[in-house]
């Protein structure tokens, strides 16, 4: 893994963007994550994560449609980059590798928690 670091929260947001695809804009990402994490998230935290990852090259974005509910303001739809895919895959591999190297007895204990 290179220097570029992906924080835990960032990784979650990045995965959500990847999951939501064309629906991946601020509020929707927030909703999705809140459902999954079962906790309240602030717009600020999501937005700062998104902007940071855009800066780092994990995400690109473009304006989507405007809705009445948004007061005529356009959404910004985020898309994951191939670089992000690579990093995500790497992360997953690392994790899987680690999981596999855990002794079987402890691993089964972990699974039951």
């Amino acid at each position, binding site marked *: 893994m290179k220097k570029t670091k992906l924080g835990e929260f960032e990784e979650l947001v990045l995965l959500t963007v990847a999951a939501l695809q064309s629906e991946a804009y*601020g*509020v929707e990402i927030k909703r999705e994550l809140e459902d999954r994490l079962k906790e309240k998230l602030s717009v*600020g935290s999501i*937005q*700062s994560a998104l902007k940071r990852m855009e800066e780092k090259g994990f995400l690109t974005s473009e304006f989507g449609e405007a809705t009445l509910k948004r*007061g005529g303001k356009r*959404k910004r739809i985020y898309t994951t980059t191939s670089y992000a895919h690579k990093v995500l895959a790497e992360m997953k591999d690392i994790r899987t590798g680690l999981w596999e190297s855990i002794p079987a007895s402890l691993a089964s204990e972990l699974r039951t928690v």
Partner: protein
Amino acid sequence: MIPRENISPPRWPLGFLRLFIKKEYLEEIEGDMEELFYDNAEKVSVRKANLIYTWEILRLLRPILLKNLKTISTPTPIPMFRNYFKVSLRGFMKTPLSSFINIVGLSIAIGICVFVYGFAHWVYSTDQFHEHKNTVYLMTFLANRDGVLQVHGQTPRPLGEMLKQDFTHITDVCRVEDRSVVVKYNDNVFHERLRFTDPEFLTMLTFPLKWGDSGSLSDINSVILSEEMSVKYFGDENPVGESILIKFDDKNSKAFKVSGVAAEFPKSRTIGFNFLVNFENLRLADPGYDMQDWEAFVNATLIRVNDPADLKAIEMGMDKYKALQNKAVKEEWEIASFGFEQLATLHERSEEIKDDISRSSASNYKSIMFLSVVAVFLLALACFNYINIAIVTAAKRLKEIGVRKTIGATRRVVIVQFLTENVVMTFFALIVGVVLGATLFIPGFEQMWHFDMGFSLAVPGLWIYLLSILLLTAIASGIYPALYISRFEVAGILKGSVQFGKKNPITKTFLGIQLALALMFITTAVMFTQNSAYMAKRGWGYNQEAALYAQVPDGAAFEQLSAVMDQDPDVLLISGSRHHLGKSNTTAFIQMADRSYTVDQLSVDAKYFEAMGLTLAAGRTFRDLFETDKQTVIVNEEFVRSFNPGEGTGSVFRIDSVQYEVIGVVKDFHSYDFFKKVNPTIFKVADRGDFRYLSMRVRPGSENKTYKGLQANWAKLFPETPFQGGYQEDVWGSYFEEISIHATVWKVFGFMAVLLASLGLYGLMSLNIAGRAKEFSIRKVLGAGAKSIAGIIARQYVILFAVAVLLAAPTSYTLIKNLFDASYTYHMPVDFSGVVIAVALLVAVVLITVSTQVRKVLKSDPVNGLKQE
């Protein structure tokens, strides 16, 4: 669901958001926030949605979302201001005429402001140098005279001593009594005012001493001199230890040892002294002086308390003394109550206190008011000049503003730039103004009025005052032009479609106000000058010309001098009197059938009326046989008007229970100058032994010669006593000087106002004409003559001028009428001639200004005008 259109997210957090969040993120985040808000509004409540919205916005303030802090904080503004400064200076150089007009105008106005400050400072610091100014009081009493309660500054003689014994609150008491004496040191012999006082005088009124010891006043043989007297008699030497002879009168004199010299008195004071001696010396100077006599007064009694709050208790206890006083005197002299005047404010109240030792500063306060008004008007005139010129010259700076705006200057920045320029200009004007004020206006004024207001630039208040004038003037004159000029849009400027400065109603209004103000100032100047001339010609009610007078110590001296002067063929008539017109009189208290009145009284002999040229209106004057006329009086017309209308001679009244009959009425006369009202006056017969004045009518033309003869004879007869006397024409002292100073002062103000207004007019016209050079060139080429060009130039100012005159002429007429009534007891009848002269003067000035411009146009070569782009 709540209808969408009725709810919306709260506004102020949104504004907050827009202020801080990066522009490129705004649309997205705003949209998100709004979507969330409506979701919440549906799910929970609008109120809660509002709260969540606000909270969320606060939580959006994260570094990555925020605007770059470096772009928010403006870069250090100093280089920008340096640029403004440079541009201002270049601007001044480029348009020397406008800058000259602006700076001259402002600096004159600021100079006057500096002067007003100096004067006000001088007035307000009056008597404030006394350390105990808040605990020292002058005793006064209130008495009902002529139906009016009047405050008197004198005190019954025994009161001071009694108070000191009776009240523990009173720490010090000092009595003050003044007498005229002759002071002799070697060959220096002069009439002087001597002040008898208790030793506490110098601890209560803290005049510092230059030499000697202030405690020495308790020594009955000591005298303390003022700095001025010390110089007069001893030059720069330290006179302590020297002996001077003080002659109280012909018989009594005493040698005193100089034991102290006061340091130079502060410039603004109302109480001072020339010679101070112990009060006990009065026993020698005036053997008849009874210190225990409740019926007689001492000139002043000062008390000092520990705490001003103690005064209440003292005032409460004064009834006892009032009873004592009223038991001692006759009914008509009864007093209503005793009072106390604090030293710190005595000079302000002095105007209302009769016979007090302090001098009133009321007229000074009035002057401050007048001067402030004048200063504000002049400042306004100067500001109008600036505003007008700035607006008109703005055309030349449009490109600059356009460029500045293009490269990112906001309107606010342009305003700040223009105000900065203004501050720079005002600053120059301020420097020139302070120099003008300190070296020209203040010394000029001091010289005119013969006083020294001790002006110093080292007063912190002055600099605060100047700083506020700087900012106020800069903003007042600069804000309108700045707003006006910064308003234009870049596109318009650069396309050249912005047209302005040619016909601006505001410019015209300001010019109109300037002309109106100038007219008011000129009218005032003219009227004061007219009044001064009028008063010089106004009759005094008697013939003051070809009349001489001399003061004599007693009746015997009168006989001696009279016998000598009788030999002079130029002397037509000699008269003796106890009092003298313009020099002295006394107050008498007369009882008519129903009421009592105070009148002025002069005791004279039978020839006095002829000698002074008083005109008899009815009845007769005194006969030479004094005895028969002892109980008769001659009154003036004012007396008849005030007390017994219709009845002239033959009416009777009492003075101290002696009955007098009116045998004659003389026409009203001014015993003192025109500032003082003509009071009801009576003449009584004077005893020969009481004569104090010798007055003579001399052959017209021989005044000088006779005067010299009078002095020579005096010196022969009374070598020990200095001569006091002179021409009757001079008895009013500085009156005529004073009213002519009023005229001079207003002339100066009028001149400044006209100068400012005409400078403004000149500047405005020259800019206007410069802007229309092409038009005039075409007109000239097509054959327009001087007349037509002059007509065109003048036309736009004629209406303006007419309006200004129509507004200002009646206003100034009314104003001056009131001003005269307020400042002068007697003045010339105010008519329209002054206004007419003023208008004529202003027309002349305006015409000259216009004609310089017309000539400029006529002389110019039309080719040059046409070549202009």
